[in-house]
């Protein structure tokens, strides 16, 4: 992996409060080593309460309702909450990126940005932030857990966790990998239309695609099981987009799996509070601080 985390962490820069933000939150900008600037909303909470970093789902932004409601609720309870948006290769990205858009980003870049924000928190006295990821946003969290072995995190809470290739099935995933590899061999800078996650027309380069496809369920399970910090998985038993068997299987491997009865993938409606309860419980139970 070509990312120099130390260099990147040195480049982070808290810019300023800028633009309209939610009540109690601050608009944060972080200049990345790639030259791009990432943005986040930050609620500085009580010093004795855990710090929570919440990452949105695949191609979404921090304005996605599930993560924003969760962040605001935790902030209301005194948690310090950082809610960033991955740049996905776009400077100061504020819009969700369509599947059909040209995707130049990769899993490594996503993890680098996440890592940069963790470092940013740690640089501000928040030594062990709990990282929360929603849906496929849990994959970079898991990758970060895999990357950070110095127990820099207080824990991880993965909500409605899904992995890349889940929709395609294993056989199709393999064919996609094979194709990507072939494309990479033939024209590594070329753009191609692939299938990734919920995107049926996902335009990207083969290397970028493979960076995501690498994080299949085995690699993801291995990373979670190997995590040195508490990891809690929360899912709704009414979520058709997740592999519940796979998740339940993770429970047996030291990962806490919590099911919310009746909740769907986005924990909308009344399950918003269930989610909050579960996250709060996960943070507390995990000994985060």
């Amino acid at each position: 992996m070509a990312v120099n985390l130390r260099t990147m962490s040195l480049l982070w820069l808290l810019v300023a409060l800028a633009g309209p933000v939610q009540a109690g939150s601050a608009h944060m900008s972080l200049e990345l080593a790639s030259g791009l600037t990432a943005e986040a909303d930050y609620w500085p909470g009580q010093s004795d309460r855990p710090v929570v970093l919440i990452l949105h789902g695949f191609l979404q932004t921090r304005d996605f309702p599930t993560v924003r409601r969760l962040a605001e609720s935790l902030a209301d309870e005194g948690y310090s909450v950082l809610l960033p948006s991955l740049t996905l290769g776009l400077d100061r990205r504020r819009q969700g990126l369509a599947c059909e858009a040209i995707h130049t980003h990769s899993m490594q870049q996503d993890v680098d940005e996440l890592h940069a924000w963790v470092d940013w928190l740690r640089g501000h006295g928040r030594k062990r932030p709990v990282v929360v990821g929603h849906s496929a946003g849990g994959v970079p969290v898991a990758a970060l857990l895999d990357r950070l072995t110095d127990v820099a995190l207080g824990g991880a809470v993965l909500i409605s966790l899904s992995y890349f290739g889940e929709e395609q099935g294993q056989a199709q995933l393999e064919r996609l990998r094979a194709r990507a590899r072939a494309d990479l061999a033939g024209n590594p800078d070329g753009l191609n239309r692939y299938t990734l996650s919920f995107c049926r027309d996902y335009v990207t380069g083969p290397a970028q695609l493979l960076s995501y496809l690498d994080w299949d369920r085995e690699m993801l399970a291995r990373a979670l099981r190997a995590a040195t910090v508490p990891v809690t998985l929360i899912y709704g038993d009414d979520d058709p987009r997740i592999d519940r068997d796979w998740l339940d299987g993770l429970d047996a491997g030291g990962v806490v799996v919590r099911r919310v009865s009746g909740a769907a993938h986005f924990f909308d409606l009344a399950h918003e509070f269930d989610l909050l309860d579960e996250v709060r419980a996960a943070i507390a139970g995990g000994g985060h601080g």
Partner: protein
Amino acid sequence: MAERRRGLTIGGYAVVMVVLVLMAIASYGAFTVSEFQRIRAEMDAASQQAAAAEVGEAMDVLLRDADEAAGRFAAWEEVRQQIEHPRYYPYWRSYRMLESGVLPDYVIDAEVYGADGTALTELEDSVLPHRVATPPPPAYVDLSSEQPTLLVFRSVLGPGDDADVRGVVGLRIAFTAPLKRSRSYVYVDPDSIHFAASDSSTLSWSDLKSAVRFELRRNPMSDAVSGLLSGTVANLSIVLGIFTLLLFPALVFLIVRPLRAISTHIDRLKDSPGGLVLGDLAGILPIAETEKIRESLNAYQGQLVDVHSTLEEKSQELWAMAHHDALTGAKNRRAFEEFMHSLPQALGDRDIGVCFALFDVNHFKAINDSYGHSVGDQVLKVIASRISSVLRKGEELFRIGGDEFAVVLLDCDESSALRIAERCHEKIVGHDFGKLGVREPLRISAGLANARIDDLDDLQTLQWKADVAMYRAKRPGHANVVMFNESLARDSEGLFSSWVNTAVYDAVVYGKGLVMYYQPIVDLTEGTVCHYEALVCIEQDGEIIQPSNIFPVVEARRLEVELDRAVIRKVLDDLKAGKVRSGTGVSINLSGPTLIHDQVCAWLGAFEPYLKDFRVMIEVTETALITQIGLANDNLSRLRARGFDIALDDFGSGYSSVRYLASMPVDVVKFDITLVQGLQDVGQANMVTHLARMILESGHHLVAEGIEDLDMLESARAAGFGRGQGYLMGRPAEHAKLDRVTFDNVTQFPSDRLA
């Protein structure tokens, strides 16, 4: 007189009315259509303005939408991604840009430019300029291609708040189609929207708004209303026109025809008044008003006939009243004049004799005054009845004056006429008027004149001749029935001569030619002259008009008072002139009207200075006295008290009522010659003598008139008369110089006898 201008007939008015109604309908229709066209033109103009505003608004909206689309496009992070990493721009532009849904479908093409205004990649298929100015130009329209397109540019700003310009985006929009379907046009037919050709290949959007052309949307509702209104006006005009044209014959049939019938009927009535009835006028469609007119006309006609009959009767009554004397039933003077006027025509060529008889009641005025008008009227009725009873069939009696009656006897000679008149006289004389309270015998005088019918001049003088004859008959001593002859005409010349009339009038009014003759009244014992009776004559052109011709004219003209005043003045003049011997007296005759005049005492007062040298005696006749005897007595009493003597003249010629004599203030009674002559008659002498003696014993002086010889003188003396008057003592003369006469001294007088 110009003929009165006639108006139009009712048919003419009907035609005029129909024409006017049709003209009014046509005018109203034309006016309505004109108004509708005007309103529609105004609506079209308003619609044109609204349509222009509608198109302009639509273009503004389109431009705003395009600008907003450009803004959204510029704000799209993928655009900024392409500016920052243009490596995959051709791919993105080809497969992502237009397919993303960010750009509206009316965007033909879009281009992304760098911060320097250069397109990220120069592509052959781009229809946008390769370079644009920075900052980007405002939107403009490209007219170079077949379809005009709108080019809109927006700057692409960086993320964050620094808003640095990262590039430019441009859109080419085929705006015509979206302009047409961008909204539901109310006024504009969207398919008609197009733009006028321009010399320039580009136009600003505002210039394009001026070049837009369109047609108005047809308004089905307006067209329907227009058609409906036009149709309604046309149908209404046709219906009203037909109705009016149908109304005309109906009007003629229902109104004009009956009115013409009424008019014709009225014309027929002018020619045949009465008896015509107007039949049914309106046939099977009776009009109440015309039927009412017909009924009223017939009723009026009936009433008119009744009125006409009544008027005829009344007219006959009026004619009868106008031609008959209401008192006597005889025809009146109007009928007499009409009869005389029509007599020549009525008689035609018949050669027959015509006799005119004129009857007059003697002393009728005295009867009227003595017994009252009621008795007088009864007397006249009896006289008319008596005369009528004598007349032959076809002969009519006319009352032509108060007591004057006339009869025209046709086919009658003089002897027959005389017999008829005498018979009339006999009938009247033989009637017992005592039943009416009239004690005196009643007489009539009749004057007759005859002529041949073929002698018109003779016929026209008949009445005059009869007047002359009647006047003669009235004179004392003549027969009561007198037939006219030429000698009567000569004797009556004074009465009927115009020059005599003129002379009398001049004498009475101006005193011209008036001459007084004085006849002595003598004391029969001593021969002294007591008075000279003043007798009036008129000298005219050397001729003398005698009293017998003067008095009829005076009485006819009612000049009694004027004559008496002229006589008074003349006698006074004579007294002044010494024509009357002093120591004697004058006796003046006064008429009845003078006696009752309220100034008579003043007039006679002029004699008072002479009363010391003259005796002045006023002679009145009993006829004059009995007319308003009270007033006459009052005046006579005053005169008597002032020294005048009062004498009753011609006593015995009339009624000789002793009752009157007893009640009158009379000093002297002058016996009429008829009574004096009666002294010569053995039968009458005794009565006259006793009458004279009775009056003498009552304190009156007596004067015997008409003493012409010594025998009469002696008889008078024997009867007790103290005074006498007559030719024996002296004839009337202009000068009265004697104070004593001898009875054989007779003064010559130019006329026969005046007294």
